[in-house]
């Protein structure tokens, strides 16, 4: 061994030793050990040396405990005793303090659970860090505000495997949702996927039965989930059984899948082998087309592979096979890490709606934290406000010889005692509220402390954090009293700590006012979106979804049958409802000046009476009519925006691509949510073969009418379950995320103001107690009750004014930003601001006034006599 090869002892052991032997900053003692270690290492090798080193650690332990630990333990015992006594003695104080802490911590624990769950998406996959999804970006096609597609061509996976050796593995999947699965007399609608033979190697979805290497190899084989298997087969072994899919295919079960975890962005109850798809000639064509971005490709890359580099290589490969398409569409292929899909991806054509947004997660986490901080502030304020009561104890302790650090420890421990008790109660509360909370965030969250050590550690971390945050300032404050002043008896420095306390109170109320104002504004916007004139009617309309292609063809007959009922006033069919027209066409249209442009336009296939049915106003020309036999082939109706964008002063009679001639123009209506500007749109006449049948019903006997609709539906499409919805509910659901945000903010605003009020109640309690003498003297000199009450409340009004001044700009900036998300939005106005302040003041004064009035009403003799 050359002299330069120094071996180091185990790091952890060395760290322990450095704790045992604090050596005035030079760590010479640890270096002593290291030198000796080297000696042993050279003479007896690494194993013996490490053993020796650990032995040293073990031998140092008893001495350490004897020297350092023992007295500390005795003192901690004493501190705890004092802490418990104090909690017991001041019941009001402890109660006020703990309620705040419990509420804050419960809230934070739930938030942590939720955030943790959201971040856990797809992490159960063994290769989670190495899997990437390929998605396609189309610069310049920003319709609907999104220019990326979650999908990619079906040939992608195999081509990349053939062309790029660095791609470890690749798999493609396709949608197979809303599939009717039949086994003998049982039939269910299920969502599933097509998956190729690599799928089970790339992703970690364990099979209970079946061979993952073979189960998806052959055409017409299917793997079903455990739950589905239990639903379909009672006690039989499902393997080898044949299921009927969509009344078209018979597929053989080759495996049983353990149910897909809830925190997977892929959700499916069955997997059909991709080979099944390729048997169908038309499907095979769509797979091999480079411009059909309808499949989903996931690739596995080596560790730390440069993504940009891979993206470049993919586009090289794509250009090699489909140069023309790449140029025409302007496609750019990009990679997205698997773990980011759930929170960061909201593209067109996602395999499943990722109804989460990292922004909301951040918001949630920050707000949860803020609530916790408000609770901590309560603890800080109440503890320091009570300082005068502890002053004598501190003085005596100091005189006897307690060091400042020891007092600091004592008060920190007192905070911790309170917080540990509170956190246990908070944990129980969180457990009780979990059921409700799951429904609220729509996630299947569990508290399983003993199986998740990290969660346990997290909770301990929260306790420590809360303890330090809320305990350190009071501990510092209390331990710095000068004993001489205290014991001389002139501890009555009312201003001491008041300033800082006021800053804390201002923080609390600023946060509360911000939250209340924000909530009010969000509610205003939601109310606006719910009640604004959208340009069509949405009341008393039942929407039926026709999944069965054969039934769609029989629309005329269905309509005839529907209208026979006395409560059905009218019916229409369409490819889209007026609230949500999602498809986009890009026809080429000749302008007046002879120039041809491609316009991105929303297209709706509609029945003759569609416009009348939804009361969409026609401002020019005529509606579709049966009197014109040509309407079905070559007539379109466009909206104002379309006419305007095409620069048509007189749109009637203009050629609209090969769709036909424009026969009418409708007034603009909001066919997308208020997030989006109204875009060009076109109606084409096509009564049959539409997905939606809308039925207008009378508002009486609704259940009977629905039952009738069901009967009619079953006459035409017995195999398919009857699915209906009320149009207004469907409309409101568009704003579900806003409403969720609204109620979330509402709850948090409520909690924060609750905790803050509770805190000020406690403060007022001590304030009044401290001013006892002053109040007594004032009263004997003739002050009235209202005068005293005003005097005690004045301070708070001042704090509120300052809090409001801080809160307003924050709210204004944030909410202006937030409202940018909406193409149609409210003016913020001044009402939410004033409203928030008034709500906060009223609530706080109500809680405080209880205390101030009691103080003001008391008999002055009682106060002054004790002198």
């Amino acid at each position, binding site marked *: 061994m050359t002299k330069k090869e*120094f071996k*180091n002892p185990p790091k952890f052991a060395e760290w322990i030793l450095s704790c*045992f*032997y604090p*050596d005035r900053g*030079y*760590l*010479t*003692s*640890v*270096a*002593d*050990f*290291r*030198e*000796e270690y*080297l000696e042993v290492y050279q003479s007896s090798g690494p194993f013996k040396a490490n053993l020796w080193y650990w032995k*040293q650690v073990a*031998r*140092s332990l008893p*001495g*350490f405990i004897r020297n350092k630990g023992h007295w500390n333990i005795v003192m901690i015992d004493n501190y705890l005793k004092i802490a418990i006594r104090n909690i017991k003695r001041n019941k009001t104080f402890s109660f006020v303090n703990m309620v705040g802490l419990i509420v804050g911590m419960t809230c934070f624990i739930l938030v942590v659970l939720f955030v943790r769950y959201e971040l856990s998406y797809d992490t159960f996959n063994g290769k989670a860090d190495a899997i990437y999804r390929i998605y396609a970006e189309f610069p310049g096609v920003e319709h609907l505000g999104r220019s990326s597609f979650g999908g990619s061509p079906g040939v992608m996976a195999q081509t990349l495997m053939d062309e790029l050796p660095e791609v470890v593995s690749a798999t493609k999947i396709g949608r197979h949702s809303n599939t009717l699965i039949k086994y003998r007399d049982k039939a269910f609608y299920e969502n599933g996927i097509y998956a190729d033979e690599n799928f089970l190697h790339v992703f970690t979805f364990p099979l209970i039965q079946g061979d993952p290497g073979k189960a998806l190899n052959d055409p017409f084989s299917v793997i079903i989930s455990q739950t589905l298997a239990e639903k379909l087969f009672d006690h039989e072994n499902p393997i080898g059984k044949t299921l009927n899919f969509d009344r078209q295919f018979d597929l053989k079960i080759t495996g049983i899948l353990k149910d897909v975890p809830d925190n997977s962005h892929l959700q499916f109850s069955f997997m059909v082998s991709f080979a099944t798809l390729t048997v169908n000639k038309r499907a095979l064509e769509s797979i091999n087309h480079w411009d059909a971005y309808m499949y989903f490709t996931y690739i596995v890359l080596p560790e730390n592979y440069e993504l940009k580099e891979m993206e470049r290589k993919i586009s090289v490969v794509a250009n090699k096979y489909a140069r023309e398409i790449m140029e025409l569409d302007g496609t750019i292929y990009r990679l997205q890490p698997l773990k980011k899909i759930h929170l960061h991806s909201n593209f067109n054509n996602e395999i499943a709606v990722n109804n989460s947004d990292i922004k909301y997660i951040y918001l949630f986490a920050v707000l949860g934290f803020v609530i916790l901080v408000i609770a901590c502030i309560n603890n800080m304020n109440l503890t320091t406000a009570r300082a005068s009561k502890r002053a004598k104890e501190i003085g005596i302790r100091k005189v006897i010889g307690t060091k400042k650090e020891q007092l600091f420890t004592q008060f920190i421990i007192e905070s911790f005692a309170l917080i540990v008790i509170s956190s246990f109660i908070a944990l129980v509360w969180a457990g009780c509220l979990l059921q409700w909370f799951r429904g609220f965030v729509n996630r299947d969250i569990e508290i399983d402390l003993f199986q998740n050590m990290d969660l346990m550690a997290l909770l301990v971390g929260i306790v420590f954090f809360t303890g330090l945050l809320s305990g350190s300032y009071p501990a510092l404050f209390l331990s710095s009293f000068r004993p001489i002043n205290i014991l001389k008896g002139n501890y009555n420095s009312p201003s001491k700590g008041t300033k800082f306390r006021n800053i804390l109170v201002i923080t609390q109320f600023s946060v509360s006012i911000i939250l209340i104002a924000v909530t009010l504004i969000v509610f205003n916007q939601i109310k606006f979106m719910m009640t604004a004139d959208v340009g069509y009617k949405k009341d008393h309309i039942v929407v039926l979804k026709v999944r069965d292609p054969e039934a769609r063809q029989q629309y005329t007959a269905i309509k005839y049958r529907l209208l026979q009922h006395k409560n059905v006033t009218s019916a229409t069919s369409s490819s889209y409802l007026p609230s949500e027209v999602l498809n986009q066409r890009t026809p080429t249209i000749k302008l007046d000046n002879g120039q041809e442009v491609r316009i991105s336009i929303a297209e709706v296939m509609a029945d003759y009476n569609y416009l009348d049915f939804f009361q969409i106003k026609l401002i020019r020309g005529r509606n579709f009519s049966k009197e014109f036999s040509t309407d079905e082939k070559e007539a379109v109706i466009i909206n104002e925006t379309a006419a305007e964008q095409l620069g048509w002063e007189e749109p009637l009679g203009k050629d609209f691509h090969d769709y036909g001639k424009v026969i009418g123009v409708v007034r603009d209506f909001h066919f997308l949510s208020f997030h989006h500007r109204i875009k060009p749109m076109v109606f084409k006449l096509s009564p049959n073969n539409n997905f939606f049948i809308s039925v207008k019903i009378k508002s009486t006997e609704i259940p009977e009418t629905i039952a009738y609709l069901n009967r009619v539906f079953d006459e035409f499409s017995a195999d398919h379950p009857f699915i209906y919805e009320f149009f207004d509910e469907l409309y409101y659901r568009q704003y579900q995320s806003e409403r969720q945000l609204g109620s979330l903010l509402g709850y948090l605003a409520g909690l924060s103001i609750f905790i803050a009020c509770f805190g000020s109640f406690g403060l007022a309690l001590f304030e009044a107690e401290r001013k006892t003498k002053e109040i007594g003297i004032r009263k004997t000199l003739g002050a009235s009750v209202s005068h005293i009450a005003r005097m005690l409340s004045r301070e708070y009004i001042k704090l509120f004014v300052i809090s409001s001044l801080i809160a307003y700009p924050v709210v204004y900036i944030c909410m202006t930003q937030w409202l940018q998300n909406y193409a149609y939005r409210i003016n913020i106005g001044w009402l939410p601001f004033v409203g928030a302040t008034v709500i906060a003041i009223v609530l706080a004064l109500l809680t405080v006034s209880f205390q101030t009035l009691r103080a003001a009403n008391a008999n002055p003799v009682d106060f002054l006599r004790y002198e």
Partner: protein
Amino acid sequence: MKFLSRPEELVLLAVWRLKENAYCVPIRRQLVKSTGHDWSFGAVYDPLDRLEKKGLLESYLSEPTAKRGGKRKRIYRLTPSGIMALIDIKTISDEVWEGIPLKSLKEEL
């Protein structure tokens, strides 16, 4: 003067013996060699600290060496009162042991 404990005595003597090289590692080796017991580092630090507090030893830091992971050594040396103490110990124990040969003690076993 106050009597020193036995470990303190041994350590003090070891420091005197080692002169310029009196830091913990050789001190410990010296003690292990002369007593035959495996002294832990803690057992050496303790008397060293106490002796320093009593003013019999003083310490300074050497330059860092690579062998010790770039850390310094804390080197001890005797103060005049430390030397006084050694002289006292020597005198007292010589006096106490006066005329007692090791052989006669062993015979009594």
